[in-house]
């Protein structure tokens, strides 16, 4: 007995001793911003990376021609001003003078031309290419003017340029083609080192064209478990955190020592029906499913109410009150009537695919929908898949239904042209289209007057919700959290970290 007691005493002392030095260790970061996130960058090529985790790093190194402010307005970046011609087939941009790349070379119109030539070259393999295919040629009348000639009226191309995927790289870098090894941009921070799955270190760009950046550098750490990220914030070991899982973020909601930012996300949670498969090919069946689902309950149960029930467009400027959408208030009686009208009064059985932990709420969403559909006699079987397997089947359109979190864009056309136009690259995933939808999208693309665009896309939203090829559920929040002494960070609906340059650390 004595021995056991002695042993436990000794082990307790060892543990206590081991933790003592950590207790007294002071934060020694200086003016380096230390941030943590669960996912790591997957590659350094700004034109090829699509993973959000990669974009969050690359947007600190590279800069596009235009960017989005926190209200999603298009604002100047490397382009100082721009102008469309009368029929929106030519975009002329005046470029900023005095901008230099991290390697010291000067930014001019030749770099812009080289960048877009690389993006449009199919050998590059950029998934963002489809946003810029209306460009037929690029003229550079002088070093600081660039003219994009378009084969069709294309207003949304400007918003599509406000993307990390349209980052300007130098003509020399395009020739060298070492984008996976070297990251040479014009942005506020210079890449020092990337150790995959551990950390990335960035240092201040002393030659940045805007005042600042204020931090001396940024250290991006990978902490795979979000509960551990929350713990690291509480312990004061990190300054800033990116959070993805609402269940982890809400832990910080009432913590007086941590600032939690929540910005409504552009990305939307959706229950995708495959209208090419029976019985979802029947409008009444799709509408019955729409009426049987209580979107607010899905949000409350799966995501602890962290978000807002939404229609197809999550962009603030294009909001339509949800009460104007078809069956956005649950109506089980109407759902049963619609099922009977479709000759499916006895219900049916179908499946849904769900990616494991992507998003973290996906499985819970599927389970709530499963319970709600059971009330009108529909049996939903859930297939939980590893992410890449899910993506593979999703891209092939190989599913009855899918629970998805799809990315949003600042412009309705770039957001949905891939799904809801006849020529859309992902029409085979959407599996439904009609003439009205296709023509509304085309009108929206060509229209430059904001009020008229709003009217077009409002009609688009109401129509597609009524046709119910997909059941839009809700959009959540983009979460960032930081210590109170981190000042000047501006949360952005695109989750952008670009305002890192403006952060002051008053430790």
């Amino acid at each position: 007995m004595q021995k056991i007691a002695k042993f436990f005493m000794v082990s307790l002392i060892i543990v206590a001793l081991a933790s003592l030095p950590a207790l007294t260790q002071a934060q020694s970061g200086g003016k380096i911003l230390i941030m943590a996130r669960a996912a790591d960058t997957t590659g350094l090529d700004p034109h090829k990376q699509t993973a959000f985790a990669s974009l969050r790093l690359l947007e600190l190194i590279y800069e596009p021609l235009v960017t989005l402010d926190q209200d999603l307005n298009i604002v100047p970046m490397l382009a100082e001003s721009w102008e469309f011609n009368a029929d929106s087939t030519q975009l002329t941009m005046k470029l900023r003078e005095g901008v230099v790349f991290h390697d010291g070379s000067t930014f001019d119109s030749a770099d812009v031309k080289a960048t877009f030539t690389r993006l449009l070259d199919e050998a590059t393999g950029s998934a963002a290419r489809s946003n810029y295919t209306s460009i037929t040629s690029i003229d550079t009348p002088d070093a600081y003017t660039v003219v994009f000639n378009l084969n069709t009226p294309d207003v949304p191309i400007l918003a599509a340029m406000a993307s990390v995927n349209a980052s300007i790289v130098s003509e020399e870098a395009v020739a060298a083609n070492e984008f996976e090894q070297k990251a040479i941009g014009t942005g506020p921070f210079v890449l020092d080192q990337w150790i995959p799955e551990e950390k990335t270190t960035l240092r201040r760009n002393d030659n940045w064209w805007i005042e600042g950046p204020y931090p001396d550098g940024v250290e991006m750490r990978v902490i795979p478990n979000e509960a551990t990220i929350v713990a690291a914030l509480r312990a004061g070991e990190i300054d800033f955190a990116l959070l993805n899982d609402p269940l982890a973020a809400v832990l910080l909601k009432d913590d007086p020592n941590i600032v939690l930012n929540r910005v409504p996300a552009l990305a939307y949670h959706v229950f995708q029906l495959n209208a090419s498969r029976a019985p979802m090919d029947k409008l009444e069946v799709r509408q019955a499913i729409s009426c049987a689902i209580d979107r607010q309950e899905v949000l409350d149960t799966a995501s602890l109410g962290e978000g807002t029930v939404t229609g197809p467009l999550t962009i603030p400027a294009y909001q339509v009150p949800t009460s104007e959408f078809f069956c956005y208030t649950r109506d089980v009686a109407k759902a049963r009537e619609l099922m009977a009208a479709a000759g499916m009064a006895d219900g049916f059985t179908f499946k849904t695919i769900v990616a494991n932990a992507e998003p973290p709420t996906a499985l819970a969403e599927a389970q709530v929908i499963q319970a709600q559909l059971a009330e009108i006699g529909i049996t939903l079987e859930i297939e939980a898949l590893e992410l890449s397997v899910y993506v593979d089947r999703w891209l092939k359109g190989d599913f009855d239904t899918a629970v998805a979190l799809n990315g949003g864009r600042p412009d309705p056309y770039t957001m949905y042209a891939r799904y809801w136009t006849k020529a859309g690259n992902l029409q085979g995933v959407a599996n439904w289209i009609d003439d009205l939808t296709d023509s509304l999208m085309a009108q929206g693309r060509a229209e430059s007057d904001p009020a008229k665009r709003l009217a077009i896309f409002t009609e688009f939203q109401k129509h597609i919700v009524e046709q119910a090829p997909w059941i839009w559920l809700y959009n959540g929040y983009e979460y960032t959290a930081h210590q109170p002494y981190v000042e000047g960070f501006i949360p952005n609906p695109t989750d952008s970290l670009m305002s890192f340059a403006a952060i002051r650390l008053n430790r």
Partner: protein
Amino acid sequence: MLRYIAQRLIAFLPTLLGVSVLVFFAMRLIPGDAITAQLGTEAGMLTPTQRAALERYYGLDKPPVEQYFIWLGEVTQGNLGFSIRHGKPVLEVILDRFPLTLQLALMSVIIALLIGIPIGVLSAIYHNTLIDLIGRLFALIGLALPNFLVGTLIIYILSVYFKILPNSGNYVSFGDDPRRNLEQMIFPAFTLGFALAASLMRMTRSAMLEVLREDYIRTARSKGLRERRVTYSHALRNALIPVVTLLGVQAGYLLGGAVIVEQIFALPGLGRLAVNAISQREYALVQGVTLFIAFNFVMINLAVDVIYASIDPRISYGKR
């Protein structure tokens, strides 16, 4: 003995070859490839020409069987391939991660031995007393609590009540800063060691109980040997054989990386490397890591067999 070891080593070759074939084709049978893993759903935006260009880039443009033989040819020359994401040869990536995994495995085994064996012995000696009860309760707790729970609890207690978290994504190696490294490793090692201690304790206890009933123990006692001597040099030594077996298997698993504990404590070990390589469909890295883990596993098995011989003189290799 040497001859025996040499024979065993040669017998490992087909095992490793089998593992490589299995992993190679299993990775290619599961849906998704490096392109969809990289681009996610955006892969759907690629034109066929773009896709073909990327397939060439990732080396996916040749038939799998041909890919396998190209890979095998390289492996026989000591080249496990190149990881595009890490920008390094696969072997280098693995060797970067291995010291952490080895250290974590060693520390947790030591913690497990320090806790598990004494409690097991005490439980057996004081069979059916309060001490035994406490010991068994400890084992029950250790086995019942999954390590993600223990790890999360430790992190919660440290961060909320002590305002510390020795490792918040800034792991340092033992060589760089031994003290800081031990601070970072002690909690994950304890998390792993705790569960292992519980199973070691149960194994030690039951083996000891069996041995203590043997005739030779009675003989030893009747010769007038002191109880301490009987317990430690006669009983414990013989009771250790099943314990060594269990330890060998567990250490083999630990050397393959402890995925969950590495995730929770943000440690860049082999387990996370393997899991991320699989989800990124980095074929060369997955194959390299599995081969490396399989190699460690068979080597540990060999070590266990050799240790048997030194514990139990009745077991010997080579003499017949």
